[in-house]
């Protein structure tokens, strides 16, 4: 039976303050390194190390407490809500960048070309500017890297779409295995998902290499390059995080953690993976394809 008194309230912990020190060191170091202070880079590396230590220590402690049976179903529900709302916050973060893309495509670029009641903008400021999307020629090209072309949606991105969609299927396959007590299939499904995640990341790296080396499509290529690299870059970062999380879950699955009723850790990572998947579909349609 569930008893409310059993809701686990942890003892005092050093992990949070350590996380704050690491975060301040990482970000403060980053900011000072941007202005040529080499000590900033040291602080950044140090802060990153502290954060890694904190994340592994903290999550390790949570896993340990979970395996010791300290969490009842009410605690499990708190974790689920926490993860769900965290993913929602991530959706809103991507929303800001998608919003920027849509705004630029629908309003800013046409207005620069003289659409609506802005015809003087075009004629007075940059008369030679043509408002087209993808925007390869900026209003003031001298300040930016002018790309020769863009990534073709139906080559690597289409393959990557298949890779990620397949990985969404393999993680569901692993989940079924977990629910049906098939440990080997669970491990196999997780390994397949991780491999597909790594393939995706590898192809993204190839694509970035192609963009930078052959197409001159860079972060500095005006608004097209800005939105392209920031959206796909943050997505790639999330896939990287998701892959690391999947590897942790794989290790836990191999050690015999999780059972068919209690496997919040697995599900949290699966939700995260599906979220990354859905963001990719949005990217494929609005960044690469249309």
């Amino acid at each position, binding site marked *: 039976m569930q*008893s*409310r*008194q059993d*809701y686990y*309230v*942890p*003892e*005092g*912990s*050093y992990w*949070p*303050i350590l*996380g*704050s020190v690491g*975060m*301040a060191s990482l*970000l*403060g170091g*980053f*900011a000072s390194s*941007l*202005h040529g202070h080499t000590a900033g880079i040291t602080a950044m590396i140090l802060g990153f190390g502290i954060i890694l230590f904190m994340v592994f220590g*903290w999550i390790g402690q949570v896993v340990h407490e979970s395996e010791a049976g300290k969490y009842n179903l*009410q605690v499990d*529900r*708190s974790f689920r*809500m*926490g993860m769900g*709302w*965290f993913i*929602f*916050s991530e959706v*809103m*973060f991507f*929303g*800001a*960048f998608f*919003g*920027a893309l849509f*705004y*630029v495509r629908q*309003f*800013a*670029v046409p207005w*620069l070309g003289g659409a*609506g009641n802005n015809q003087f903008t075009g004629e007075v*400021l940059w008369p030679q500017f043509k408002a087209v999307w993808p*925007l390869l020629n*900026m*209003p003031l090209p001298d*300040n*930016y890297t002018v790309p020769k072309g863009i990534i073709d949606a139906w080559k690597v991105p289409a393959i990557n779409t298949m890779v990620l969609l397949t990985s969404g299927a393999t993680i569901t396959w692993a989940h079924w295995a977990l629910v049906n007590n098939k440990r080997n299939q669970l491990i196999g499904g997780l390994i397949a998902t991780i491999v597909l995640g790594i393939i995706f990341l590898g192809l993204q790296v190839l694509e970035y290499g192609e963009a930078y080396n052959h197409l001159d499509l*860079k*972060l*500095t290529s*005006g608004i*097209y390059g*800005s939105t392209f*690299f*920031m959206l796909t870059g943050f997505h790639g970062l999330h896939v990287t995080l998701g892959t690391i999380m999947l590897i942790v879950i794989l290790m836990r699955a191999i050690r015999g953690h999780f059972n068919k009723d209690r496997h919040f850790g697995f599900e949290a990572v699966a939700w995260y993976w599906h979220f990354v998947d859905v963001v990719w579909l949005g990217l494929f349609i609005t960044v690469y394809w249309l």
Partner: protein
Amino acid sequence: MSTTTTDLENEIAGLTGTHGGHDDAHHGPQKGLLRWVKTTNHKDIGTLYLWFAFIMLLVGGAMAMVIRAELFQPGLQLVEPQFFNQMTTLHGLIMVFGAIMPAFVGLANWQIPLMIGAKDMALPRMNNWSFWILPFAGAMLLSTMFMKGGGPAFGWTFYAPLSTTFAPESTDFFIFAIHMLGFSSIMGAINVIATIMNMRAPGMKLMDMPLFVWTWLITAFLLIAAMPVLAGAVTMMLTDRNFGTSFFDAAGGGDPVLFQHIFWFFGHPEVYIMILPAFGVISQIIPTFARKPLFGYSSMVYATASIALLSFAVWAHHMFLTGMPVAGQMYFMYATIMISVPTGVKVFNWVTTMWRGSISFETPMLWAVAFVILFTIGGFSGLMLGIAPADIQYHDTYFVVAHFHYVLVTGALFSIIAAVFYWLPKWCGRMYNEKLSKIHFWWAVISVNVLFFPQHFLGLAGMPRRIPDYSLQFADFNMISSIGGFAFGASFLLLTYIIVDCIRNGEPVKEARVWESAKGLEWTVPTPAPYHTFDEPPEKALILSESSHIHHVSELAGATAK
């Protein structure tokens, strides 16, 4: 049942001196400074938040004093214009992110578990982290003032290109401080939602919850939806400044107005983040001192939810002068003015709660009544600003300054002060000095109107905001406003004394129900509130009898609960 057994065991263990030591949950707090660093206790964390917010309030207030001193007379008197701009910028940022928001999170930490009969917040370790990011972020933000080129001087809204092309180096530190503050707010909000949805006493339905809990639930949703967008905005600023992107640069195909859209998509929900918990506080205090159940409880809940949803659809009313199409102006004007309907519902409900009540005016009630009147003034000036053609005249004038200080100072801040006077006796088991507090109230409420009311006239006459010098025609009202400002600033010295005096030497309070007519689960626990409360959830009958909004059950269930 099992608690009594544990208590008995503890007592025996204590007598025989053979305590096992693993059962720390029933102990008081750890001694020393480390208690505060490591704590997972919602009351400790609430206290930390409130003191942090108070210190930041004094820091931000000191900056406001610099602003008012410079504006005391026309001409450049005391500070350089660049420094003046840093003061207006940091004053705004510190008050919004350092004072008002953390103060409400502190109130949430203290009160939500007590009001829903939970033993703690849902995710206590994360709760600690939400707080302990703040001092680091606050220090990073303040450190910008001492850097080469000075601190951010582009206004708290940090519009591009002022914050990108023309900003000092320290702006990158400011960006990361905002990232950290956002991270802290999101974690805090996730914790609030998980606590309210998962930790309520089993007998408490959603529509049994006190209104403070309801308003915080909705605020937490706004935080999770809005703060990541702000993080996105400052990230784009960072890459525009340092890595050659062109989000806010028209020469690369971007648009500086895009920054304003993203900022205000966060910024407008943000203003409701700062006022919805205030609505909750006022809805707790007025029934207590009017000795009547809250009028229109469910309409209050629906009004709060509609305000929250509408807040995501009105952002561009801050941008009527950016040359947006007329259709856009019309839409944002009507959507904005629609918000006055649910807000009006709230104001009428508070007034109706007081109607024919047996009102007594203890200090919390004085602040609550002042809130209702003065917030409504701020609401009315908001309506004026929401009218697109009129806003062409008011935009970026002192009228705007007067408007948002009426809603944020006499609105949000007054409700926080009201909440502190209302719950402080429960927190520390001591009563504040009522006479001194009333003197402080009248001092503050008169001076704050001397401070901000003339700014309406200044704005209507055309005095722009964020300017260290002004035309001679504005001299008289500026001097009056500054005198009010100094008096209002000084009132916080008295407030500090009253609070410290209450905590250290206040008259001890023994009654669990500090205010005889107060309803709510927080008044059923002993005074001062023990370190751990509600290890056993309260019964349904108690929840109903302690409801501050149910009429008929209150007498009936009160009898059965005995």
